[in-house]
Structures are given as structure tokens and as C-alpha cells.
């Protein structure tokens, strides 16, 4: 496997609220290799989006990164000042958001928004910037890009807006891209179009991607490796095919079983009893213990370490399932 591009170690993000300090991320660690797509999957509140915002330096008050490192090519992103961050964002790392309608500026045209970052980071003249932006729009498959260049976001359909946002994120050829639920708001046939585009661009530009979604189907088709998160911690990380064939963390195993799969009929879906604990009531030790069929006294005493059980397969559990 090639060298790592991004190394996240013990990432910890805390929200300082009136109710007290809440650790949204409590020691998240993973590595992404150059040219790889790492999928991050988990349910609402598991911290998958906070992880991205922390890496991008986009956390709003009262959220703050309170520990850990995130080395991109050896440079710790978490120690950058805001000015240093502005030089890195868009150029080295870029992000695509879930809802293009809120992520795009409604009072600027699509073209102005792509041009803006070109002016920020390059010496292109307005004419050159325009040419480059139109090329980007064409590249992401937007029909009649010259016209679309002067359109406002509301004049585009959901799928087209998402394409425009991809064009914007890739305009400066970043080496690392974070995609946060980029297809969740789209219909399945449009989702398939966007995923196809995304894959071909990723290959063509040799990008490294962190792809976040709650959809196990999407993650399974697009990622080389998958990390499952639960209540602000990494639960399991493995190559995609292995993770779904032989999940070792009880949470991953139950999650995979609880979704209806086309062509596999069951009378009742196996469920995970209870709900994800809120950050305020996360139990001591393993966060999953109260919903776990394999729970023992040990689980309440310490947080299980994220250990490599077999090459490339990491699990945070004291009682991992047998490998299949």
C-alpha cells in the first residue's frame, strides 16, 4: 500500500455548552493513504461530520479541537492559524457538503463563486479565471456550461447544484477531498450519476478522499476502506469487502444486519435495542455496552482500545466477534 497522506491520531473535539463540556469526538484515529477513498459511516450524532469540520478548521463556537493531531503530508492541520488555514483550504484540502442549496451563496452566480477562490489562490486574470471555471463546469458534466456560469444556484436542479459544488471544490486540484454526505439529498438515479462522476474524477485527478455517509450501500460501493464510528469514537476500520463480510465489532455486525437488503428476504429485521446514547449520557467505558449482547463488567471499566486484530483490521472492543 502507498504512503499515508493523512494521519489522524487521537482527535478530540469538545463542545463547551451551558450543560457542560461535551466530547463530540473522543479519540478518533485513522490513516488515509494516497489515492485512496476512506468511507466513514455511522448514525446521527456519531461524530462523522464533526471529524470533517475539525480537519477543515470550520468548527463554530462553542466547538473546539481539544486534542490529537492530524498530519497532512507531515503538517499538523490542527495547529494551523486561521491565515495559514486559508492558504491550505481549497488548494490542498477541499470539502463538498450535503445540501448544496445552503452551501452555495444564493446571491452570487455559480461562476463568481468558482472564480472567487481562483483569485484568492492564483494570479489568473478575470478572463483566464472565467475560462478555467467554465472548463471545470464542463468537466463535471454540466450541460451548456457558459450559460450555467452566469446562473444563480436557485436556477439549477439539485443534481446540477451538487455538480457545481464538486466543480468548485476541485477547481484548484486539491490533493485531499472531504465529501460529507454529498448524495444524501438526491434521488437514487441522480445519486448514481453523481457517484459515477465522482469516481471518474477521483481516478483522473488521483485524489485522496474521505467520504462520509450514513448509507451503507453507498459506502460499500465507493470506498476502499471503511471506518465505522459510534458515539464520537472509532469502532471499526477495515477494507470494505472484509468489513461487510466479517465485521468484528458487535455494533458493525448489528448495523449491517438491521438494514433491509434487496433480494434478501427476512420476515423480521434484526434490530439493535435502545438508542444511541446522547453525549451527555455516554456511559463510562465502551459507549455501546448498554445495547451490546456481549457486554461484560469489563466493558464499563475502560474504553476499549482501537487495536489491529488482523493486518489492516482495527476494532475497539473487548469481545470482538470471530473472523469469518
Amino acid at each position, binding site marked *: 500500500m502507498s504512503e499515508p497522506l493523512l494521519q489522524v491520531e487521537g482527535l478530540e473535539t469538545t463542545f463547551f455548552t451551558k450543560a457542560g463540556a461535551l466530547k463530540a469526538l473522543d479519540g478518533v484515529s485513522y490513516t488515509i493513504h494516497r489515492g485512496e477513498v476512506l468511507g466513514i459511516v455511522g448514525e446521527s450524532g456519531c461524530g462523522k461530520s464533526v471529524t470533517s469540520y475539525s480537519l477543515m478548521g470550520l468548527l463554530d463556537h462553542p466547538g473546539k479541537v481539544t486534542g490529537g493531531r492530524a498530519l497532512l503530508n507531515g503538517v499538523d492541520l490542527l495547529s494551523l492559524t486561521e491565515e495559514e488555514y486559508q492558504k491550505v483550504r481549497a488548494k490542498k484540502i477541499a470539502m463538498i457538503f450535503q445540501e448544496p442549496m445552503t452551501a452555495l451563496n444564493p446571491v452570487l452566480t455559480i461562476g463568481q463563486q468558482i472564480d472567487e477562490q481562483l483569485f484568492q489562490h492564483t494570479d489568473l486574470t478575470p478572463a483566464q479565471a472565467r475560462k478555467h471555471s467554465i472548463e471545470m463546469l464542463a468537466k463535471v458534466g454540466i450541460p451548456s456550461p457558459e450559460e450555467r456560469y452566469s446562473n444563480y444556484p436557485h436556477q439549477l436542479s439539485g443534481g446540477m447544484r451538487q455538480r457545481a459544488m464538486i466543480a468548485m471544490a476541485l477547481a484548484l486540484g486539491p490533493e485531499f477531498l472531504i465529501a460529507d454526505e454529498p448524495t444524501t439529498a438526491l434521488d437514487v438515479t441522480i445519486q448514481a450519476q453523481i457517484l459515477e462522476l465522482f469516481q471518474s474524477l477521483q481516478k483522473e485527478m488521483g485524489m485522496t478522499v474521505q467520504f462520509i455517509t450514513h448509507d451503507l450501500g453507498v459506502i460499500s460501493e465507493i470506498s476502499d476502506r471503511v471506518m465505522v464510528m459510534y458515539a464520537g469514537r472509532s469502532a471499526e476500520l477495515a477494507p470494505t469487502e472484509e468489513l461487510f463480510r466479517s465485521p468484528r465489532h458487535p455494533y458493525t455486525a448489528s448495523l449491517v444486519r438491521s438494514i433491509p437488503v434487496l433480494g434478501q428476504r*427476512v420476515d423480521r429485521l434484526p434490530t439493535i435495542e435502545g438508542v444511541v446514547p446522547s453525549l451527555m449520557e455516554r456511559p463510562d467505558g465502551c459507549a455501546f455496552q448498554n445495547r451490546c449482547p456481549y457486554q461484560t463488567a469489563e466493558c464499563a471499566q475502560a474504553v476499549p482500545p482501537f487495536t489491529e486484530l488482523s493486518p489492516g483490521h482495527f476494532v475497539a472492543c473487548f469481545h470482538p466477534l470471530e473472523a469469518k
Partner: protein
Amino acid sequence: MEPLLRVKNLSKFFPIRKGLFLREVGSVRALDDVSFDLYPGETLGLVGESGCGKSTLGRTLVRLYEPTQGEVEFLGENFLKLKGADLRARRKDIQMIFQDPFASLDPRMTINQILTEPFRVHGLHSRTEQDRLVKEMMEIVGLKASYLDRYPHEFSGGQRQRLSIARSILLKPKLVIADEPVSALDVSIQAQILNLMKDLQKEFNLTYLFISHDLSVVEHLCDRIAVMYLGKIVELASRDELFKNPRHPYTKALMAAIPRVGFGKREMKASLQGEVPSPISPPSGCHFHPRCAVKQSSCSVKYPELIEVAPAHFVACPFHSGGTSL
């Protein structure tokens, strides 16, 4: 068997008004000439993408919208003709579960008030009997009776959806229309709600019209499935038949677009190019023809009838082909 609900040529057009005198300049053809029967005890799934008219159909059936034309026969009587007290009495038998459990429960009412409201509206039972039934129902949907004094904001999304379900079946309806009831929920909670709906169907002998955009959920729950595209039903068949032998090109494309869990990374290939056209001016002839892989010149002329091509398998495409299954 006599159908519980018979829908004939039902249409709902929303007028578009413009100008000083709000002249009608066009219409959104949200639901366009839809017919089907729903039999007692079955679950009929309605699937399709945004804007295909599946929610409009659900809302028109409970008369939240008045249809532009068409007939709805419920329990043998013309449901669209009912007025006043008759309508209210009949509505007891059709209940609805909505997608967003955050919007469908009044935030200023306690759970007890929310759940006894259906009884108050219909003037049913004494106070003590109401309380008893509500408590019993809380248990049936898996919630503690001690929660009754709480307000909706104190519950999680899954619990709220349990409350909406409890409210909808308190009146022992015959038909429950569920509009994307699990779309807003996390996957582990989704499974709990789907199981609950299955259990309740057995216990109370319910008939479901289940509206969803998620084919795998629909396959799990439904006996028969209708696929909709731009206001029309394009294919209707039993679950086994539809998934084994999808015939309409749109159904096939829709199935091919669903990401598969657990098969490992693969190259994505979009099964459909372009986007769903606007229902304000749908394409001439077959609405699907501009995106269709097997279109012929005649497709842009006349909308194809929904015809029975195999026993109980209806397809609105003269050039349909069987065989390509998953």
C-alpha cells in the same frame, strides 16, 4: 375478494396562478390518471423519486387535497362524495402516518393530549376508557405509560414515530397510509419501526399503503408494489414478480441505481441520464421517453395504457421486456 379501496382515474392538478388577478396560467400535474385496487390486509408500496406524485396520492386519498377528477371507492361507498358528519365518521377508518415526526406532533400538547385527541374529535369513549386505551396503546408501540405527561421534544425521532403510529391506530382504522415513515430515521431505528409496523398489521388486521423512495424498504414490507413516474403508475405487480421480473425500463433503471451493500467497491454506472422533467409540462406521449433506453418513435405520440402483461402484473410500456432480473 372485494377491494377495500378502489381508485379510478384519480388526478390532482395544482393550478399555477400569476399576475394581478391570479389568472391560472398552467398546472402542476402531480397526479395524472391513476387507478389501482387495495385489498384488505395487504401492504401496497408506492415507490418513485421526488415529484413522482406518491405523496400527493396519499394526501388525496385522505382528502387533504380535493382531487381534480377521478373516483375513490372506500368500503363500497363513494368516498369523494361524503360531506360533514358522514365524512368525519368515515375518516376514522383511514389514518395517516407522516414522514417527519418532528413536524407531525404538536409541540405544545402533552403526549396524553395528543393521543386522546382522536377520541375527542370523534366523541368516542368515556374519559376513563380513553385513558385505559391510550395506556394500552403506549405499551403496544413499546413506550412506557409514564411518558404520557411529557411533551414531544423530550423524545427521540424513533420514539416520536412510535407516538405517531400509536395515534394513527388508536381509532382501529381499516386503512393506514404511511408516507415515508422511516425516511427520517437512523438505520438501526428504522428496523425497529418496520418491525413494529409488521406486528401491528397482524394484531389489528390493518391494510397499509406504504409510500417510500427506498426500494429495499419497500421490498421488505410490501406485498404488492406500484412504481410511479411523473404522476403516473408505470408498473404494478406483486413483490416477487416485480423484483424477479421487472419489465418497465424505468423500474429496471431504478433498481440498477440502488447501491448494493457488502459487495465491495465497484465502478458506478449511472443507469439513467438526465433528470426528471417538470410536471408542469411533462414530455408528450410517454413521460419517460426522453430518458428511455428502448424508446421508439411512437413513444412521443401517445401515453401507453397500463396493461396486464402477465397475471396481476401491469406495465405501461408497449416495448417492455421481461427477463432482466437482479
